[in-house]
């Protein structure tokens, strides 16, 4: 019996509420999978819509690493990896009726275990992107 890979994502703000222009710091790591089973890992900061319409998606930040692209001194794709990005001015998180806009950090891994095809696993960590506090006139 094999466990599914465990993808852990941690954001710098515990309440995961950010404002436009904030710097988002993220760390992720992968467990319950062997190093040589890992083919690639991708991390993205993106927004997506949900609700009654088709899903739209906007990728703000993206990085991909494969075994080949890693440094020779650290080829293991599972290790704790850190990245930062400055969050954009729009679109804000939105909880409407037919339309919702959600932000998340998404980590996607491709693994191949013995005798099996390549499989992908995805884990999202949501966060909120807010407006600034109201200006006082």
């Amino acid at each position, binding site marked *: 019996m094999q466990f599914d890979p465990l993808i852990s994502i941690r954001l710098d703000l515990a309440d995961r509420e950010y*404002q*436009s*222009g904030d710097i988002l710091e993220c760390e992720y790591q992968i467990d319950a999978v062997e190093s040589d089973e890992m083919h690639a890992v991708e991390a993205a900061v993106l927004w997506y*819509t949900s*609700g*009654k*319409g*088709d*899903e*739209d998606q*906007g990728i*703000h930040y993206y990085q991909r690493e494969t075994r080949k692209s890693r440094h020779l001194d650290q080829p293991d794709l599972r290790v704790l990896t850190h990245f930062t990005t400055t969050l*954009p*001015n*729009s*679109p*804000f998180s*939105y909880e*409407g*009726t*037919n*339309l919702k*806009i959600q932000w998340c950090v998404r980590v996607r891994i491709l693994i191949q275990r013995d005798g099996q095809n390549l499989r992908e696993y995805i884990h999202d960590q949501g966060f909120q992107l807010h*407006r*600034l506090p*109201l*200006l006082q*006139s």
Partner: protein
Amino acid sequence: MSRQLIRILGKKRGSRHSVSSKFGVIGNVAFSLTLLLLGLISGVFFLLNLPDGVASWLLGIVILSFIGFGIQGLVTGLLGSRVGDGLRFSLIQNAHRFDLTQKSKAARRLPNVPTIDTLLMSPGNTQPWRLPVTTGKPIEIISVIAFFATWTMVSFFLVGYSINQYRTTNHSGWSWWLPTLSLLPSIGFAGWSGRMLARELKNQINIDPLKVEVSHQPLYPGQTIDVAISQGGALYVRSLRLFLVCEEVTSYHQGTDVRTETLEILREQVFVQRRFEITSKAPLAETFTVTIPPDAMHSFQSNFNCLQWRIESVGRYRDYAEIRRGFSLVVHPLFEDADDVNNSSGDAHAV
């Protein structure tokens, strides 16, 4: 100084015309309609009595050009007039689907927020910005014109053919079935579509469109802006109401089905006036304030979903059907580098 209805030489003086603009529209429409009908009638007789040789080609080109200029004059006359605001806006919007504004600085600064296009925004008279009309009936008007032209041509053709048949054949051999079966319906269709066209033109020409001008663009949540409305003409207004509207528009398609749903999430009445008269000496001119709710979501646009803001006017007039028009607004998100809300006013710059 009141304007003369008819004046041989009209002059443009600044932003004013010395001749009634309504006369201009009527004249343009009448001229184009005359050209179109002349072309259609000539076309019918041309088809019934085709000349030989080069003459047929030349005559054909002349007749086609009459028809073409007639249709073009009708359409552009309506486009160029105030009534064409909706059509003009729709056409420009369609052109902008292929625009590269997404790569512009404004789009990079505010991803998925509609940009304010200075091509669409014209300076107002009393406020810095005049809002473009986003709803009109352009397709309807063109369809009515096309329908009218088609059935008029068919009717004339059938009349000409019947007369031709009657004259060239023996009367005893004249077949009654063609005129009986086809003339009446086609003349009926032509007459009915002509009535529809006349009604559309009457509505559009006699009712000056409402103009809406705003003090600030873009807008921000919590911001209060001045809105000026104006309307000319000669009308008795039963009621005129303006609303601030926010909608979620979502599209779902799967395989063969496409389903678009528009859900209003805010409708706030911002202006109302009842039972008053608009005359050439006393046009409607009002100014009021509108506040964007502080917790408002900014305008958003993606492939299948959007959130849009607009001002909607609902006018009920004596002797005319209710008229609804929409005026697009763009609400931007508040962020650190945003222009100071109080100063986001009338400089005509792209965001």
